[in-house]
């Protein structure tokens, strides 16, 4: 039962030391209020929330994947490549096997196989990255830069760089389902992923091991943890999540292509860092990452509502806000440290 105790202790320490969540919440509310005040008829509307809920799940799920890798002290730059490769495999399978004009009932088994196929490709991609990092001791940033290149390369190779379109209609109809004409399926998937990963991190032994290893891999090894297996499993989960994101992108685009969403990689890393995941490992929560995703989506959709803000300033605003949040975070944590020091001196 020692592990349970450790888990409890680690969790206790974590929540006590995580005012980051509160800050992010303040930031989130601030951006929300700002946009609502500036664009009252456009921002806080059902249509705009519906549209935002359709937009963020694909990169949100990839951000969670990257966050997991970062918690163990690594990084996974291969998420977009994995997503596209697994979507392309599923798309190729569907295009190649489903008879044209088949009735929906007949298409369903193909869809299930395609989904399973794509998830297995995701797992395989994660296994490759995880093996390179854990067994060959290649730094994660280099290993996954390599896998990103490799997966994208394979994807380009098997498609000649062309979009794979002509999927059975049923796929995108399912993929773009909206419950109560408001909540998109992709959002539901994101929700399930975020909650499951959140539970995994905070309530399971494996989650605790990830934090421990991320904090100090050597100490973790001396404490009897199997680092190799933890790393491998982390990247497998990240690969699996990437393939889920790939399936969502495939539904949204009604096609798959080797370079869809290429700029997402950097965006996902930024989200993870903004969400309070420590790039050095061992710290951060899915709650924080989710809030960071929402902040960025609010900003992005909000900025698109200002017709007069030239597209040139968009990156400036985007980057400016990111830096502000990071600095704001740092300042607050310094203040807290000082306060803690003062308290201990009294």
């Amino acid at each position, binding site marked *: 039962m020692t592990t349970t105790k450790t888990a409890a202790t680690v969790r206790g320490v974590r929540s006590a030391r995580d005012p980051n969540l509160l800050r992010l919440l303040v930031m989130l509310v601030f951006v929300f209020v700002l946009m609502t005040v500036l664009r009252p008829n456009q921002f806080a509307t059902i249509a705009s929330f519906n549209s935002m809920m359709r937009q963020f799940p694909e990169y949100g799920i990839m951000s969670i994947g990257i966050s997991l890798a970062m918690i163990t002290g690594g990084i996974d730059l291969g998420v977009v490549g994995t997503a596209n490769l697994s979507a392309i495999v599923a798309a190729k399978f569907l295009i190649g096997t489903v008879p044209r004009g088949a009735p929906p009932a007949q298409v369903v088994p193909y869809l299930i196989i395609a*989904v399973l196929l794509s998830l297995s490709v995701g797992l395989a991609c994660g296994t490759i990255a995880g093996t390179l990092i854990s067994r060959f001791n290649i730094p994660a940033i280099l290993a996954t830069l390599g896998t990103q290149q490799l997966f994208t390369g394979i994807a380009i190779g098997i498609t000649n760089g062309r979009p794979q379109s002509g999927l059975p*209609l049923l796929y995108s109809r399912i993929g773009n389902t*909206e419950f109560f004409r408001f909540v998109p399926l992709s959002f539901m*998937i994101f929700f399930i992923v975020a909650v499951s990963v959140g539970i995994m991190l905070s309530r399971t032994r494996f989650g605790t091991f990830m934090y421990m290893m991320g904090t100090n891999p050597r100490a973790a090894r001396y404490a009897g943890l199997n680092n190799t297996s933890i790393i491998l499993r982390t990247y497998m989960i990240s690969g699996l999540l990437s393939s889920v994101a790939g399936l969502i992108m495939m539904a949204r685009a009604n096609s798959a292509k080797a370079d*869809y969403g290429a700029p997402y990689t950097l965006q996902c890393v930024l989200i993870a860092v903004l969400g309070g995941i420590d790039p050095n490992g061992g710290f951060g929560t899915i709650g924080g990452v989710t809030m960071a995703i929402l902040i960025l989506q609010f900003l992005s959709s909000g900025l698109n509502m200002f017709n007069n803000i030239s597209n040139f300033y968009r990156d400036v605003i985007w980057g400016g806000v990111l830096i502000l949040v990071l600095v704001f975070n740092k300042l607050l944590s310094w203040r807290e440290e000082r306060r803690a020091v003062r308290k201990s001196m009294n």
Partner: protein
Amino acid sequence: MKRRLLLVVAIVMIFALAVPLFAQSYNPLNFKSKKPMSQWKIALVPKDATNAWFVRMEVGVKQFAKDTGINAFQKGPPKTDAAMQAQVIEDLIAQGVDAICVVPVDPAALEPVLGLALSKGIVVIDHEGASQQNCLYDIEAFSNEGLGQTIMIELAKMMGEKGVYTTMVGNVTNASHNEWADAGVAYAKAHYPNMTLLAAEPRVEIMDNLDTAYERAKELFKKYPNLKGIFGTSSLSSPGVARAIEELGLKGKAFVTSVGLPNENKVYLKDGTLQSVLLWDPRDAGYAQLAMAVKILKGEKIENGCNLTAPGWTSMQFAPGSTKVLQGKGWITITKDNVDSFGF
């Protein structure tokens, strides 16, 4: 997790039947706006917000807004990426714009989101996306045949309508380059009896490479001393061949023209190695897309000869066999006199 996902998929199967189909056909006449013109909002979505080509397109968008007083603006993704372009369109739909003009990064990837726009009664106009299903119209600056003929007319003018010429394509597999060249050769045959196609090498390939264009041209002029003109297609042929003409001292004796970008050809146009290159101006394409959207919002019927009020876009013709794709004569001739006026 896999099991949960499957469960979700299974549940969704039931809901799926309630979702409308994507590829529906819409009657453009049903998109007539009930709002007064002053409340219209029209967005143009380029492939990339900061690329020089689309910055030039925005000039046309702003011009249109100024000329008509309609709230028209350009909003694009920060990078040339199909997924990000779809997100911008999502946001525009949520804002309740009346029309979306789009230059698709990848038409296939935009089908669902444009289908959504159409289902909400938003006018969708494509540009350079002839394969797009979910749009009311796709407008193109030119037909391949028309552009090929125009390149030939320009070349014939330079050559004094006589002499030997050959054609140069970016790649022998490039469908549009070959169509331009075929149209040009056919036009020469019919109109310029004193011009002959170099029989030994009627179609030269430059592998989409500037240096290859230069080397191939040098080779050609040495091998065939009576070769007088090169009918170029790719925008790389004019500057490449011009360099060869200059180096071989053939200025005024050998000629080339092709599609070309102003800045790449500026030096040669000014020193007389090149007389003209052809281009379509993204400014006019932007202006024409908005004009098209306005026509639909006004409830006008689109027919052959419709006027999109931008230079070269004044008499649009349906592409053969299509009721969706319209082609203009939107090319412009760039000479030493106007090469500085484009900004790209």
